[in-house]
């Protein structure tokens, strides 16, 4: 299947700091999404971004499909940003077609 690598695996920030999370993937994709998983396990949609750049408040994301990576930016972090951030992708063809593959996540801890 598609290999999805996220970095860093763990991140500790002071409230108000900025951060960048990275997602590398091994094949061309027709779907890339960023999720925030809260402590109760709910996956919250942050961005649907197979290519290009999007912004939503303090969060923004960029996917460079030709170079097979995506970045999630968190500015002015808050304690409520804590949790695990997942990147997930799907491929447009071949054996991987129609399957959604997740990375292993970045665990973010924002300290007050």
């Amino acid at each position, binding site marked *: 299947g598609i290999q999805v690598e996220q970095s860093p695996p763990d991140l500790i920030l002071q409230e108000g700091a900025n951060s960048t999370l990275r997602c590398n993937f091994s094949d061309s994709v027709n779907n890339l999404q960023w999720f925030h998983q809260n402590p109760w396990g709910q996956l919250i949609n942050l961005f649907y971004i197979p290519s290009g750049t999007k912004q939503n408040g303090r969060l923004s994301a960029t996917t460079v499909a030709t170079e097979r990576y995506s970045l999630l930016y968190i500015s002015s972090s808050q304690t409520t940003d804590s949790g695990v951030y997942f990147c997930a992708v*799907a491929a447009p063809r071949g054996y991987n*077609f129609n399957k959604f593959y997740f990375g292993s996540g970045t665990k973010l801890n924002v300290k007050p």
Partner: protein
Amino acid sequence: DAGVTQSPTHLIKTRGQQVTLRCSPKSGHDTVSWYQQALGQGPQFIFQYYEEEERQRGNFPDRFSGHQFPNYSSELNVNALLLGDSALYLCASSLAAGAANEQFFGPGTRLTVL
């Protein structure tokens, strides 16, 4: 706009038993996918249902089976439970078969096998 719902929220079973988990997709969606998330890992794709048929399957044994109903809701069945089946089971819905469209997830069912 109703989101994806799952039931039950928690479940405790013993080895060898069978379990059924349920999922109702987001309003307007017709495709349901199931994922297993072990502790500390990312979710893993089990299978996808569209038009009441299994369209794609991940690397899971035949003990894992499913069904989709005419109203697009879905069930995940796991037979002969093993300790290793303990996990968070997530359901996702989307519009049309495949994984190209945006996927929306339910709150999950936490299964514990003793």
